[in-house]
C-alpha cells in the first residue's frame, strides 16, 4: 500500500512540476545555465527549498486560522497594509502574464514567421475566452498533459550525463558544495532573477486558500508536507535540467528565444516543435491559474475566503480577468518595444521580469511569516527565527540586486 501511495504522489508530482515550467523559469534557467554552467545550480536548489519552506508555513496558517492570507491579514494588520500585499502580488502576477504573452508570441514567431505583435493580442483574446469558461478541469488536464513535453529537458539532461560521465561528479559537487564564483554586480542581479523565476508568489496565497477549501485537518498536515517535499524534488529536478541542458548545448552569449530553443538541438527538428507546444500549454496553464489567483485575492480582500466555483461565478471574476489580461498585454507591448528601442533580446526581457517578480515577492512572503508567528500551537521558535532571517535575507538580496541593477554598487 505504501508503494501505491508513493506512486500516487510521484506521478502527479512530476507532471505538476514539469507543467509548472513556464517561460519565466525556462528563460532564466537557460540564461544562467549558459553563462554560469553548473555553478548556479545550488542557488536554484536553495531558492526552491526556501519557497517550499514558505509553502509549509502557508499550509500551517491555512489549517490553523481557517482563513486565507489576505482575509487574515486584513483582519489583523488592517486594510491599508493588506493593500500593499495585494498591489505587490497583482504587480508580480501581471508581469508574469506579460512575459508569458511575449514568450509565446516570440516562440510562435520563430516557428511561423507571423510578427509577434500580431500574435500577442490574438493570444490574449484566446486567454480571455478560456478564462470565461465555466468548466475548467477538462481543459486543465489537456494543457497539463501537453506541457509534459517539457520533460524533454530531463531526458536531455540524462542523455548528457550518460554521454559525459565525468560531468555527473561535477554536477553533484556543485549541488552539495556551493562553488566559488566572482561575486560581481552581474552575479547579484542574476541571483535576483533566479529567485524571481523560482518564486511564484501567487502560489503561496493560492495554497492557503485551497487548504481551507479542502478542509485539511491538523493531523493531515504532515501528509501535505510530504506532497510539498515531492513537489520540491521534482521542481528542483526540472529547474536543474533546464540549466544543465543550457550549460551543455546552448550558446554562451544567449540573447534571443532562438538561442534558447537551440539548447534542444540534440533533438534536431523536433526540438523547436516540442518547445513550442510545451511553452504554449504551460504558459496558458500558468496564465489561467494566475487570473484565478487575482480574482481570489480581490474577492478575499472585499469579502471572505470561498470556493473557486463561487469566485468564478461572481461578477468580480469577469472584471478581474479582463483587467488582468488588458494590463498584462499593455505591459508586454511596453516592455518589448522599450527593449527593442534601448537594446536587449528575449533573455533580457525575461531577466527584467524575473527581477521585478523577485522585488515584489518578498511582500507576501513577509505576511505569511508574520501570520505564522501567530499560529498556535504549531509555530516553532526555531522556525520563527529562521523564517524571519530568510525574509530578511530576501529583502537584502533584493536591495543589493536592485542597487546592482541600477549600477550603484
Amino acid at each position, binding site marked *: 500500500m505504501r508503494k501505491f501511495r508513493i506512486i500516487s504522489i510521484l506521478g502527479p508530482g512530476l507532471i505538476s512540476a514539469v507543467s509548472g515550467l513556464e517561460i519565466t523559469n525556462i528563460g532564466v534557467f537557460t540564461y544562467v545555465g549558459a553563462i554560469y554552467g553548473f555553478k548556479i545550480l*545550488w542557488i536554484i*536548489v*536553495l531558492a526552491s*527549498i*526556501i519557497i*517550499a*519552506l514558505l509553502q*509549509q*508555513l502557508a499550509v*500551517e496558517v491555512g*489549517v*490553523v*486560522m*481557517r*482563513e486565507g492570507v489576505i482575509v487574515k491579514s486584513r483582519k489583523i494588520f488592517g486594510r491599508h497594509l493588506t493593500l500593499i500585499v495585494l498591489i505587490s502580488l497583482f504587480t508580480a502576477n501581471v508581469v508574469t502574464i506579460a512575459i508569458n504573452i511575449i514568450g509565446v508570441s516570440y516562440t510562435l514567431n520563430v516557428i511561423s514567421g507571423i510578427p509577434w505583435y500580431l500574435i500577442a493580442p490574438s493570444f490574449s483574446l484566446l486567454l480571455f475566452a478560456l478564462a470565461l469558461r465555466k468548466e475548467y478541469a477538462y481543459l486543465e488536464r489537456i494543457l497539463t498533459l501537453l506541457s509534459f513535453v517539457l520533460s524533454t529537458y530531463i531526458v536531455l539532461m540524462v542523455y548528457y550525463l550518460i554521454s559525459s560521465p565525468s560531468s555527473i561528479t561535477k554536477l553533484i559537487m556543485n549541488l552539495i*558544495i*556551493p562553488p*566559488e564564483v566572482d561575486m560581481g554586480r552581474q552575479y547579484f542581479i542574476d541571483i535576483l532573477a533566479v529567485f524571481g523565476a523560482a518564486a511564484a508568489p501567487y502560489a503561496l496565497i493560492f495554497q492557503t486558500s485551497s487548504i481551507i477549501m479542502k*478542509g485539511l*485537518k*491538523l*493531523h493531515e*498536515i*504532515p501528509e501535505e*508536507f510530504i506532497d510539498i*517535499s515531492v513537489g*520540491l524534488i521534482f521542481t528542483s529536478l526540472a529547474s536543474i535540467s533546464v540549466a544543465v541542458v543550457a550549460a551543455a548545448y546552448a550558446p554562451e552569449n544567449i540573447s534571443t528565444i532562438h538561442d534558447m530553443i537551440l539548447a534542444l538541438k540534440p533533438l534536431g527538428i523536433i526540438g523547436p516543435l516540442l518547445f513550442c507546444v510545451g511553452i504554449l500549454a504551460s504558459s496558458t496553464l500558468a496564465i489561467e491559474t494566475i487570473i484565478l489567483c487575482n480574482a481570489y485575492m480581490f474577492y478575499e480582500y472585499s469579502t471572505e475566503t470561498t470556493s473557486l466555483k463561487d469566485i468564478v461565478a461572481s461578477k468580480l471574476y469577469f472584471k478581474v480577468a479582463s483587467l488582468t489580461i488588458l494590463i498584462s498585454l499593455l505591459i508586454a507591448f511596453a516592455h518589448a518595444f522599450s527593449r527593442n528601442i534601448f537594446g536587449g533580446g528575449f533573455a533580457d526581457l525575461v531577466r527584467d521580469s524575473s527581477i521585478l517578480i523577485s522585488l515584489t515577492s518578498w511582500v507576501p512572503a513577509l505576511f505569511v511569516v508574520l501570520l505564522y508567528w501567530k499560529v*498556535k*500551537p*504549531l509555530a*516553532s521558535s*526555531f*522556525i520563527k527565527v*529562521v*523564517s524571519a*532571517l*530568510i525574509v530578511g*535575507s530576501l529583502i537584502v538580496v533584493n536591495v543589493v540586486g536592485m542597487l546592482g541593477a541600477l549600477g550603484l554598487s
Partner: protein
Amino acid sequence: MITMDVWLLLRILVYIMGGVLPFIYNYYYVKRKVKGGKEVNEKTSEENSIVVSDFTFSSELRGMGIESGNTTDETIEPVTIVSSTSIVSPHAYDDRGKSNPLYVVLLIDHNVMRNPEALTKMVLNVPKIVNNIESKFNKK
C-alpha cells in the same frame, strides 16, 4: 581577513541553515505536535459511541410513546438523534497542544424521519453542516 576556506564554510552554512535544515526540522516538529491532536481524535471516537447510544435512548422514548397509545397525528413525537459527530477545533488548543473537542449533535424531527429522501439528503449534508459550524466557531 577572511580566508577562502571560511567563505566556503559560510556558503555551506547558508545552504544548510537557510533551507535544508529548517525544511526538514519543521516537518518533524509539526508531525510531533499533531500527534497529540490525533490522540484526542481517537478519544473523541470513543466519546462518539456514547453519544450514538443516545439514539437508542431516543428510540426507546419513541417506543414508550407507542406503548402509551399516543400514536395519533396530533401527538408530537420525540425528536430523534440520527447522527452525531465531534470536531477538534485548532482554536480549542491550549498552550500545551491539548485540545477540547466540540460535540455536534443533529436533531431531526419525525417528518424528516418518515421521508427517506429528505433523510438521506440531510445525513449526506452532515459533513458540510459540521464544516460550517466549525468555520463560524473559528471566526468567533
